[in-house]
C-alpha cells in the first residue's frame, strides 16, 4: 500500500514540476510600457502565454502559476525589427558568376551558428531582414528571420522567405571589377558593368525579358519567373539607391512597370523627400557615413544630411532605421537616438525601429508592437530607449528570455 502511495505521489508531482519548469505563462510587471501601437501604459502588466502576448493593460489579473518578471522600475518596449541587418552568412553574399541572379535565395546560405545572430540579439533585435549582397544588379531574394536558438536548422529561424527582391541602382556592381590575382583574363569579371548606364540598362533588360517570358514560356526559367512575380507586385523590390538622380530614376521605373518599391540606403533622399512621399514609397535608412568607407559609398555618399531621417519623416515618408549591412553596423537604439538628435520626431524614431520596418517587411501582424495576439518579443530597458545611458536589461523572444544582463 505504501509503495502505491509513494508511486501515486510521484506521479502527481511529475506533471506539476513539468509545468513549473515550462513556465508557460509569464507576467511582466512594467513601470512604463511603450506599446508603439498606442499610448504608453504606466504601471501595467503584460501576460505572455505560449510565446504570444495574451493580455496587456493596467487591470490584468495575474494567474497563480505565472512566473513573474518584475520590471516595475523599468521601461518595456517591443523587440526591435531590423530592416537591413548584417547577414549571418559565411563567405560571399553575392553570386558573382552573373550580374542578374533573381532566383538566388540568401535563405539557403544562412548559418544559424553565426556570431552575428548572437550579437544582434544582445542589441535588442528580435526580427531581422537578410538580403543578398549589393554587387549584382539583381542580387536575389531576401528573407526575414528571427534569431531563435539553439542554432540548428535555418528553417526554424525563417518567418518569411522570398520576402523581397534585391535590386541595385547604386554603383556597387561596378566596384568589383578587377580580375583576381593570377586568374586568367577570360573570366566573368570582365563581363560586368562598368558604368551607371550599364547597370540601369541591365535592369531594364531584365524587366523586359521578364515581360517577354510572361507572354511566351518556352522553357522554365526560375529567374525570370521571380521577375514576373515582382512585376505583378507579388514580391516587393528592395532597391539600393544613394543619389537623388538615381532615386528619381527609380521612382520613374517603378511607375513605368507598376512595381512595389522599397528604397534602401537613400543617402540623398532628403533632396527628393516630397517626390518619394508622393509615390508612397517607404525607405530603409542605414547609418550615414560622414567619412564613408567603401569607394562606391564614397562616390555616392558625400552629400550626406545628418537629418535625412527627420526630413523624410516630416515630408510624410515611411522611414525605417536599420543597422546597415555594411561592415560597420550600428545598433538600432543608437540609430534612433541620433536620428532624434538630428531632428527626427521622437515617436517616428521609435516607430522606425519597430512598427515601420515590420510593415515594410510585411510581418506587422506578428511583430513591431506590443499588442494582444502578437509574438512576445519584448525588451526591458533601464530607462528611456532614446538615451545613450539606457541599458538593455532583458531580451525576450517568442516568450523566452534569450539575453539578460546582471
Amino acid at each position, binding site marked *: 500500500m505504501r509503495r502505491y502511495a509513494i508511486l501515486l505521489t510521484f506521479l502527481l508531482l511529475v506533471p506539476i514540476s513539468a509545468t513549473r519548469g515550462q513556465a508557460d505563462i509569464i507576467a511582466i510587471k512594467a513601470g512604463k510600457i511603450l506599446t508603439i501601437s498606442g499610448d504608453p501604459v504606466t504601471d501595467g502588466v503584460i501576460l505572455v502565454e505560449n510565446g504570444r502576448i495574451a493580455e496587456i493593460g493596467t487591470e490584468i489579473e495575474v494567474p497563480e502559476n505565472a512566473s513573474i518578471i518584475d520590471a516595475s522600475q523599468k521601461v518595456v518596449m517591443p523587440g526591435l525589427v531590423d530592416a537591413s541587418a548584417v547577414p549571418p552568412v559565411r563567405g560571399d553574399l553575392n553570386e558573382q*558568376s552573373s550580374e542578374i541572379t533573381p532566383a538566388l535565395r540568401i535563405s539557403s546560405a544562412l548559418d544559424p551558428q553565426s556570431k552575428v545572430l548572437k550579437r544582434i540579439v544582445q542589441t535588442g533585435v528580435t526580427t531581422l531582414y537578410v538580403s543578398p549582397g549589393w554587387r549584382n544588379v539583381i542580387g536575389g531574394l531576401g528573407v526575414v528571420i528571427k534569431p531563435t536558438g539553439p542554432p540548428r536548422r535555418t528553417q526554424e529561424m525563417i518567418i518569411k522567405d522570398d520576402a523581397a527582391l534585391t535590386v541595385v541602382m547604386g554603383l556597387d556592381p561596378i566596384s568589383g571589377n578587377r580580375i583576381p590575382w593570377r586568374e586568367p583574363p577570360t573570366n566573368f569579371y570582365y563581363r560586368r558593368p562598368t558604368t551607371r548606364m550599364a547597370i540601369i540598362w541591365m535592369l531594364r533588360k531584365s524587366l523586359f525579358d521578364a515581360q517577354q517570358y510572361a507572354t511566351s514560356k518556352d522553357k522554365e526559367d526560375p529567374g525570370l519567373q521571380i521577375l514576373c512575380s515582382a512585376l505583378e507586385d507579388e514580391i516587393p523590390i528592395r532597391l539600393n539607391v544613394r543619389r537623388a538622380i538615381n532615386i528619381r530614376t527609380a521612382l520613374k521605373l517603378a511607375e513605368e512597370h507598376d512595381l512595389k518599391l522599397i528604397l534602401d540606403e537613400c543617402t540623398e533622399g532628403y533632396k527628393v523627400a516630397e517626390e518619394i512621399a508622393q509615390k508612397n514609397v517607404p525607405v530603409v535608412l542605414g547609418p550615414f557615413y560622414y567619412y564613408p568607407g567603401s569607394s562606391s559609398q564614397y562616390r555616392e555618399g558625400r552629400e550626406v544630411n545628418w537629418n535625412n531621417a527627420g526630413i523624410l519623416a516630416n515630408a510624410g515618408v515611411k522611414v525605417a532605421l536599420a543597422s546597415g549591412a555594411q561592415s560597420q553596423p550600428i545598433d538600432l537604439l543608437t540609430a534612433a537616438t541620433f536620428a532624434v538628435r538630428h531632428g527626427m520626431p521622437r515617436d517616428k524614431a521609435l516607430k522606425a525601429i519597430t512598427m515601420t520596418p515590420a510593415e515594410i517587411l510585411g510581418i506587422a501582424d506578428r511583430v513591431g508592437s506590443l499588442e494582444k495576439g502578437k509574438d512576445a518579443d519584448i525588451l526591458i530597458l533601464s530607462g528611456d530607449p532614446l538615451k545613450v545611458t539606457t541599458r538593455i536589461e532583458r531580451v525576450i523572444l517568442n516568450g523566452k528570455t534569450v539575453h539578460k544582463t546582471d
Partner: protein
Amino acid sequence: MRRRIFPSILLSLSVFSHLVVAAEDTQSLAIRAGRIWTVTDGVITDGVIIVKDGKIHAVGKEPDVPAEAKILDMSDKDVIPGLIDAHCHVGLSLDIFAEIDEIVSAVTPDMQILDAFDPLAEDVTKARSSGVTTVMLAPGNKNPIAGQTAIVKLYGNKMNDWVLKRKGGVKLSLRDEALMSDRRPTSRAGLMALLREQLNEGKAYKDDEYDPCGEVLKRVADGNVPAYICACTVDEIASAVTLVDEYGLKAVLIGAEKGDEIADIIAERDIPVIYAPLLLFSKDKDLKRVVKLANSGIKLAFSSTAPKTALHDLRTSAILATKYGLNPEVAIKSLTIHAAEILGIADRVGSIEKGKDADLVILNGDPLQLTSNIEMVIINGHIVYKRQEE
C-alpha cells in the same frame, strides 16, 4: 567419332583451364584463433576459420578442416574482419591535392574516380599494414557535384578482384571549398541554387537525348543511387537535409563533424553518416560528438580521408570514440558491418561469415586498444601483410 572428340576436347580444355585457374587460386587456409570477432554472431573463442577460394568457407569452434589447408596457428591472437574505410582518396595520385578535384567545371557527375585509381601506387601498398581491406574512393570536396565514387579492395590479381563497385554513388559537396572566385558558385546561396538546378535537370532528364551527366543526375535525383554529401558544419548538414527532403535523395552524410547538434533531425530521416577522422590532437568536446550521433540511432561508419590522414587512423578513430563513450560493439561494427551496409557491399564484406570474402585482420590483442599490433592482413584469402619482427 568426330562428335565424341569435339566435346572431349572441350571438356579437357575446360578442365585444363580450370586447373590453370586452380593453380592461380589461393591456397586454402585454416586459421586457429584465440578470439574470432565475427561481428554478426558474437566472439568465438578458440575457433577456426576455413578459407577456400578466397572466401570464408567455414567458421566455428570445430569446423571440418580440408586436407590441403595450410594451418596458421594464431591461438593467442584476435581476428577481426578486414576494416572498411568508407571515404578516402588513397592510390589516386602522387600529389593528392591535384588529382581528386576537377575544379574547372563545378558539375562533373559523369567523372568516375576509378579512372584515377592506381592499384600499384605506393600508398596503397603501405596501407595494407593498416588493417583496412576495403575502401570507398571518392573525389574531393572542391566540386559541388564531383563525380562517381568507387569501392575497391587494397589487393587483387585481376581487375575484377580489386573492384567491388565501379560506380558506387555520386559525391556532392556542400563545403566552403566548393566556392571559387572564378567559376560558379562563388557564394553559399549560389551553391544551393546550383545543386537544385542540377537535381531539377536530373529529374527532367529523358534518355531519348543521351547526356552522360543528365543520366547520372537522374539516378541521383530519383534516389536510385546514393548521394554522398560532404557536409560538416550545422548549416551545411541542415542544407543537406533540406535537399533530402525536397528531392527524396538516398543520402549518406560525409564528415558531419558537428552533426551531433542536429542528430535527431538526421536520425529521423535514417540518413547514415560516414564520420570524419578522429585525431589524437582533436579537442575533447569535438571527440564527444560522434558518440552522441551513434547514441541517437544513426548508422555510423568511419573514414580516414587518406592520404590527408593515414589509413591507420581509421582504427584510431574508433578507439578514440570508445574512450569518449562509444559502445565498443558499435565501434567495431562501425569499422566493419555498418560501413558495408552503408556502402551496399554487405553481401561480400563486413563480417566473418560463411560465404563472405576472406578479408581478415589478425592482431595480438583487443582491436580497440592502441597497444594492439596488427600481425597479419589477409585480403581475398591472400596474405598481403605480415608484421616483421625487429
